[in-house]
């Protein structure tokens, strides 16, 4: 799916990798796969060794069950893949659920993440602990998908295209026409599998239980490495929150930038997104040499 990248599998995780240079890990979100990086990863691979896993339960990765669906467990699965690939320290980019995994990894494995970009999320704890009517309406899927198995799984399986396309077309976006048809085909191939539907529901079932508890347990913790917060300027998060403000108390060094588009701006504005990420990653060389 990503031009010039190789694909592989390790420990139940499917991934694509390409390029040479300092390691960079890209984590996709819901209801997507690593194919979301198709127009971003090749640009970043000019200067980095880029690794794009499918999260556990998503894409071509195995569905681990509810225990393996927490952000902490997903993060550990990604670390296992990176161990296998011989990657110790890496830069990390995550969108949506992948952003939440990235946030958790920054807290759980601070010695391994040297730079992180979080895309179009507010902290899980912030969203859930201060839930507003408008947010619950826009993010109804947080509560629908979190219903016990197999209720939402079965409803979605009756018409997965209708369900997930409503997600991709919403949240501040302009419908499906702004997406690359080849990327959409990759998403559809994944979400038409009942095991992937269960995996995605498990992700949200863990989100309002285990993940929230994990966040409550280290509320004061800050991301130690430099962080870039990107958000869709027309997205629902920017409509309801000052996204940068929500992250400020959870970061040590932070910059924030709006990208034109809705929640799925990496799909609909890949060049702008890649440019913002490349600029942030370029600073890495400078800070690395300072540390050295």
């Amino acid at each position: 799916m990503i031009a010039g990248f190789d694909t592989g599998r390790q420990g139940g995780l499917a991934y694509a990798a390409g390029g040479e240079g300092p390691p960079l890990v890209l984590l996709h979100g819901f209801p997507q796969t690593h194919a979301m990086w198709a127009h971003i990863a090749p640009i970043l691979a000019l200067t980095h060794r880029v690794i794009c896993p499918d999260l556990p339960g998503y894409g071509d990765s195995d569905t681990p069950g509810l225990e393996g669906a927490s952000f902490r467990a997903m993060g550990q699965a990604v670390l296992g893949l990176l161990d296998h690939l011989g990657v110790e320290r890496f830069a990390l980019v995550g969108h949506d659920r992948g952003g939440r995994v990235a946030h958790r990894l920054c807290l759980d494995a601070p010695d391994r993440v040297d730079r992180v970009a979080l895309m179009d999320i507010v902290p899980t704890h912030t969203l859930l602990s201060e839930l507003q009517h408008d947010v619950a309406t826009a993010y109804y899927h947080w509560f629908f998908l979190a219903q016990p198995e197999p209720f939402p799984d079965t409803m979605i399986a009756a018409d997965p295209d209708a369900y997930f396309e409503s997600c991709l077309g919403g949240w501040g976006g302009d419908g499906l026409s702004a997406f690359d048809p080849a990327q959409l085909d990759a998403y559809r191939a994944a979400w038409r599998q009942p095991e992937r539907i269960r995996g995605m529901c498990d992700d949200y079932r863990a989100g309002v239980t285990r993940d929230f508890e994990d966040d409550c347990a280290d509320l004061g913790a800050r991301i130690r490495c430099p962080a870039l917060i990107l958000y869709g300027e027309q997205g629902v998060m920017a409509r309801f929150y000052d996204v940068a403000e929500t992250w400020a108390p959870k970061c040590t060094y932070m910059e924030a930038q709006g990208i034109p588009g809705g929640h799925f701006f990496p799909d609909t504005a890949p060049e702008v997104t890649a440019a913002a990420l490349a600029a942030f990653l370029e600073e890495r060389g400078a800070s690395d040499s300072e540390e050295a």
Partner: protein
Amino acid sequence: MTASLFPGFTEERIPCGAVTLFVRHNAAPDRPALLLLHGYPQTSAMWHGVAPLLADRFHVICPDLRGYGRSDKPASAPDHAPYSKRAMADDFAALLDHFGHDSAWVGAHDRGARVAHRMALDHSGRVRALVLLDIAPTREMYANTSTTFARAYWHWYFLTQPAPFPETMIGHDPRAFWLGKCIRQAGSTGTGPFHPDAKDEYLRCFDDPAAIHASCEDYRAAATIDIAHDDVDGGRKVSQPLLALWARRGVIERAFDPLSLWRSRADDVTGKALDASHYMAEEIPSEIALHMTRFFTARA
């Protein structure tokens, strides 16, 4: 079937202004009227355990709300006004006209209780007192949104998504949706607290795509135009006596302070939690009927 569920009751379709409603009643128009209003996703059949216990004392009138059961399901509008609680309350004022009742006692559950709240404000002379089952005021519930609430009442946020998305997803298997939602909300397994004949009626009625759409419109109205109507009312409170009964095993108990929320919207509020799930009229019908009889006769 109805004979066994509602012994001695009559079934009629009655023109009520803009719509015709399906109504079960005990054909005793000389007795004081008691209007019983059902909730989502149900029909008047939910009163089968309560209504017969009240039939000696009242003219017990159990309509299907517009959009539900065998009542008309008028086309909606972009502002959802045809499914506003105001429109539904107007239906029931017309229903009282039809029977020649100046006013009625009102017992109501869930969506029906939201209609009863609006009816007490819009037709204050027609409503003598209210017993409301397992709700807090709509506007105040939304204003007090929490994760606890959204996890339990996820359907408040799902059903209000723009048409036809929830309609399409539900329509693939309405019965699986109905059972999955209601059995779980009852904290139950198997057939839940529902009488088999009542459940058959609920499921049969919910097979109708027009009923699915209308019930989504009911929720869309609740999230928009019903709140707008509340806001226009400002601080105006219900002046009639109001008894709030809610389920100890439900989200009203877990996520809200229903007495204090009701006291912000009504002058004369009493109430308590009862040991039941959300579908309390079907779980503990004798207790509900006793509460209604005591509350209404003490205020006659």
